């Protein structure tokens, strides 16, 4: 039982990342009708926003310490971050420690502007082009973005820790009445899950309860009629692209402490998130979220030893297997509308 609860937690956690990426992807598809292969790259850039902020905080001045030597035997240069110099070691250290949560604020304007630039500068010209062209151009963009990151940050993963208070884990099981040590879960992963829930809730509330959201939903359903009503739907869709980019970016920022970011992390998630979108139903926001969590949980269960011993290698293929079964039995995906992208 405790093992199952643990895997559900793991699944929800993985599912949070899938759901956030798939949410943005399906938002872009639903509003603009564009298949965005660069969406994984946006997630990656989000994570590197956290890395960058950490680097900015760590910009240091150098002093030479004669008493110690570096690896070549020369006097050692000691680096002290300016931030510690200005705010004192304690306060400065705390700011550096909290760089990942602070990067949320840092990343929102960056991601939204990247989204705007992408949409206005590139994607706009591809609305009328075939999906294959959209895939090719966004794939090219994804490669370019990832190579730029690689050029500046290298190929190796870069450690980006969570704040001290969120490191480590706590005994979740005791709260549920299990034996101690039965269900241990890291704080940061719970934070991630809560964060994802807030963002998903926020996006839904925004679309559901604001006039802006209402117009966007109307535009998704029937773009031409909304335009005939004299509403500039394109402008709103551009803003939605920015929001989708920000959602992917935030998913990346918060993911940085879970796994050290590297330049190809976007590609690792890209295929998966497409599978999630399709399983959920192209263009369906609740479908994307539901499918994200569902696949996350199923993936976690498939990695359990009990299941692997019956079906070796099942954890390698479970996601794809589920996608095939769902697409064959329910072509529209879990919650897709009929007729969307069926040909």
């Amino acid at each position: 039982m405790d093992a199952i609860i643990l895997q559900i937690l793991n699944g929800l956690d993985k599912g949070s990342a899938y759901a956030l990426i798939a949410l943005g992807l399906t938002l872009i598809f639903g509003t603009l009708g564009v298949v965005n292969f660069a969406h994984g790259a946006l997630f990656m850039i989000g994570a590197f926003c956290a890395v960058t902020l950490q680097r900015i905080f760590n910009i240091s001045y150098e002093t030479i310490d004669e008493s110690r030597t570096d690896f070549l035997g020369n006097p050692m240069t000691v680096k002290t971050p300016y931030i510690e110099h200005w705010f004192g070691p304690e306060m400065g250290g705390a700011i550096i420690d909290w760089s990942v949560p602070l990067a949320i604020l840092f990343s929102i304007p960056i991601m939204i502007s990247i989204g705007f630039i992408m949409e206005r500068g590139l994607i706009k010209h591809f609305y009328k082009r075939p999906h294959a062209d959209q895939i090719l151009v966004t794939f090219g963009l994804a490669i370019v973005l990832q190579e730029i990151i690689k050029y500046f940050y290298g190929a190796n993963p870069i450690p980006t820790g969570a704040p001290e208070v969120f490191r480590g884990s706590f005994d979740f099981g005791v709260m549920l009445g299990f034996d101690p040590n039965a269900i241990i879960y890291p704080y940061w992963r719970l934070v991630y899950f809560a964060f994802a829930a807030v963002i998903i809730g926020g996006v839904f509330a925004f679309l559901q309860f604001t006039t802006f959201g209402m117009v966007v939903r109307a535009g998704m359903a029937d773009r031409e009629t909304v335009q005939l009503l004299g509403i500039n739907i394109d402008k709103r869709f551009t803003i939605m692209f920015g929001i989708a980019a920000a959602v992917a970016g935030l998913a990346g920022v918060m993911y940085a402490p879970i796994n050290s970011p590297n330049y190809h992390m976007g590609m690792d998630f890209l295929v998966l998130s497409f599978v999630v979108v399709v399983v959920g139903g192209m263009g369906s926001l609740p479908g994307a979220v539901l499918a994200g969590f569902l696949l996350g949980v199923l993936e976690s269960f498939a990695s359990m030893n009990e299941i692997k011993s019956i079906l070796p290698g099942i954890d390698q293929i479970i996601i794809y297997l589920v996608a095939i079964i769902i697409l064959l039995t329910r072509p529209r995906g879990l919650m897709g509308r009929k007729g969307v992208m069926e040909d």
Partner: protein
Amino acid sequence: MSKSNLTRRGLIKTSAIAGAGVALPTIFTASSAAAFTNEPTGGSVTLGFNVPQTGPYADEGADELRAYELAVEHLNGGGDGGMMNTFSSKALQGNGIMGKKVEYVTGDTQTKSDAARASAKSMIEKDGAIMITGGSSSGVAVAVQGLCQEAGVIFMAGLTHSNDTTGKDKKANGFRHFFNAYMSGAALAPVLQSLYGSDRKAYHLTADYTWGWTQEESIVASTESLGWETVNTVKTPLAATDFSSYIAPVLNSGADVLVLNHYGGNMVNSLTNAVQFGLRDKQVNGKNFEIVVPLYSRLMARGAGENVKGIHGSTNWHWSLTDDASKAFVKSFGEKYGFPPSQAAHTCYCQTLLYADAVTRAGSFNPCAVAEALEGFEFDGLGNGKTLYRAEDHQCFKDVLVVRGKENPTSEFDLLEVVEVTPAAQVTYPPDHPMFAGGELGACNPGA
């Protein structure tokens, strides 16, 4: 900077044909006049450096490339000579290899066996490379080694740790300086025993591909011979990025040691995840829970940040060694590039020097002569103490380092500290050891 666009073929033409309009066609195969593939005939010799330049191991590849460039500089008499001054064989004069200036071509393996072979082939077919070296994974090393055997050039393996490279996939034209999974196990076991006792229960997470399996097999064998019990061995997909669902069951499995048979990005993520789940703070069976990473790479360990502190593993070489050779190498590398070399850089540098030295001692570039000179060659002064290139399987036998993640690093490079230098005798195995059985060197192939 050396000019590497001067190829052997170009030199044949300029020197031998010298302006003649149309020459008689020559056949480039068995019946040709050359004694072996890509015989250098001009004033220079071309080496092929085939390293990952794109993909997850690109940084490691870049470090290997730096080491190669340094080695070429030293061979051609530039720089401070590095480990050529400490090398026990004094055949190298700093005048290139046998008076021929060393030039090189580079290629990208992409850490894919296919792409690596394509790149190596272009070096052999187009650039006339006489030796191929490099690589950052065992799959690539085995694949390129097979190619070099067929093409008739020498392959000096870069970073490859699988037993298979000099085990079931060994080749007469291939040589490995790097250590292997068996040696990791043999070196780690006694240290683990003295640290953690002989009554331990180990849980293995293993990358689900060939290297992972040989490493798991080696570590299981050597820890079980100490009296450890292996609770479970779980395979994880290579593409996995989040290891939470593999780590979570560890705590309740009754195990008190977690062995991570992962490398590169897998290792960074699985170690980070394991520490996140608080495994290191737990007590199981009345003992502290421990994590072991049998193959450490300092470059990659940096990605795991603070999580490596206190974690034990093994490594081929580390820049903090204080013997003269290591110091000379760190000095010339550090002064040129501004940071200390990685173990990948070290093994690549050594391989280049060893090749050049073998050619000089053999007095010929013929792969068979070079292979003969390397087989059974005993040397010292390359940073690993006394070393033997064993004739039976072309594997180097030398001391292996057991290292630990440093608690208080003084710089960003100062991540590991050497706990013990396990003597070569302790990691030596018979050539017909079951973990290495199933292959044979075959005959050396000079090509052409």
